[in-house]
């Protein structure tokens, strides 16, 4: 089961979110000295430099990190732009209200969320997740919002009828006492909460 130190360190660098320093690595591999680890990092760096791959091991301020060679960044950026991201929490909550309460007025959404939702509505409209269904016969003729077709696509729903009912959600074991669901410790959530700070 013993693996070569070089490859152990490589696997850590590979799976890490951030640059790793010799000191940090020493924290997880306490049986190895820091100078030893530093030595291996340098070797790995040299190795990748000469390997002629699309990525190298770079020494940056906080440590070492695998990075694509700069020549490839046009391709990588093109891909990342087209890759899925997450909806912000305000956007998600607003969307949830619209999904469940449609047809719904902006003032209703704001009453539920307790904040102005103008900006969020704009984002959701731009993303084609919601649509304006019409105007309500009230002073000011406020707009009526509902979900758009793209909403069904993004959430992989056949139709609006497939949206789980709130009773069913309770049935999933959400506790009845009205406390919030404990966050799953899945790696996704971790990433989500880590990203904004970095």
């Amino acid at each position, binding site marked *: 089961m013993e693996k070569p130190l070089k490859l152990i360190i490589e*696997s850590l660098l*590979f*799976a890490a*979110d*951030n640059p790793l320093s010799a000191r940090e690595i020493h924290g997880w591999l306490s049986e190895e000295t820091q100078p030893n680890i530093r030595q291996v990092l340098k070797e790995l760096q040299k190795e990748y430099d000469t390997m002629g791959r699309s990525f190298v091991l770079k020494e940056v301020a906080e440590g070492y*990190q*695998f*990075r*694509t060679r700069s020549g490839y*960044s046009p391709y*990588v*950026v093109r891909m*990342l*732009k*087209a*890759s*899925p*991201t*997450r*909806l912000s*929490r305000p956007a*998600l*909550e607003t*969307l*949830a*209200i619209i*999904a*469940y*309460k449609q*047809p719904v007025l902006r003032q*209703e959404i704001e009453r*539920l*969320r*307790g904040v102005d939702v103008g900006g969020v509505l704009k984002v959701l409209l*731009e*993303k084609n997740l919601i649509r304006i*269904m*019409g105007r*309500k*016969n*009230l002073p000011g003729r406020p707009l009526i919002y*509902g979900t758009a077709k793209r909403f069904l696509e*993004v*959430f992989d729903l056949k*139709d*609006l*009828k497939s*949206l*789980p009912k*709130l009773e069913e*959600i309770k049935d999933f074991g*959400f506790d009845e*006492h*009205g*406390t*919030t*669901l404990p966050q799953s410790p899945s790696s996704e959530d971790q*990433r989500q909460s880590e*990203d904004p700070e*970095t």
Partner: protein
Amino acid sequence: MDYEVRLDIFEGPLDLLLHLIHKSEVDIFDIPIATIADQYLEYLEMMKALNIDVAGDFLVMASTLVHIKSKMLLPDSKEEQEEEIFNEITRPLLEYISLRDAAQELSERELLDRDVFARHVPPYLQRQLGDEEPQLDVNLFQLIDAFRRLMDQRLPGVQLSFRPEKWSVKEKTEIIIARLKENNSIFFYELFSEDRTVSEFIVSFLALLELVHRGLVKIFQLTLESDIQLTALFEGNKQNGTIGNDGKTTQIDY
């Protein structure tokens, strides 16, 4: 009687049954029902004695076992009995075993984030993206969760109550038509699922009657027990197209 007081926690009735069959070293295709039924009931008794909640699922199986056992005292055809045992006991057990094995096999694979790890998009790459808005990655559960969270926060333990709003029949008609355009057919109760006040409910109902009266909507029921359904008689629904395709109910005048 000496019980080994070593209460295994059984996931469910099938689990317990398998355990008993295993312990008795009998063949799954030749289960001595009387014996196994007694052991099963003993176990439930023991759980009750120890104040362990016996889930309803266990009791259903108990009654099945007792039922089969009692039938075996009758001079029924042996074949019939064997058939019942197979269908009620053996086959569920076989299915359970095969799925349990499949689950085991799945868990022995190289699981992501347990045995192997993938790269994440490093933050420095995300920074290069600037303000560009990429695609969405969100699932239904997150959506529901967001909604639940919101409801809990805003109105702990209280049903939502909305300020009464005035709806006109015409507005509701438009909404019903919009929904039917999206879905072709919807259930009657769904029509009212979003109505929050009695008056809104009534307006919806009037709107529906209006649509039926104008021959734009058909109401039907597949069987006596099934829910009432509505279906559109306009546009893509092969019948006469009286409605413009812009979603406006231009043909309906009041």
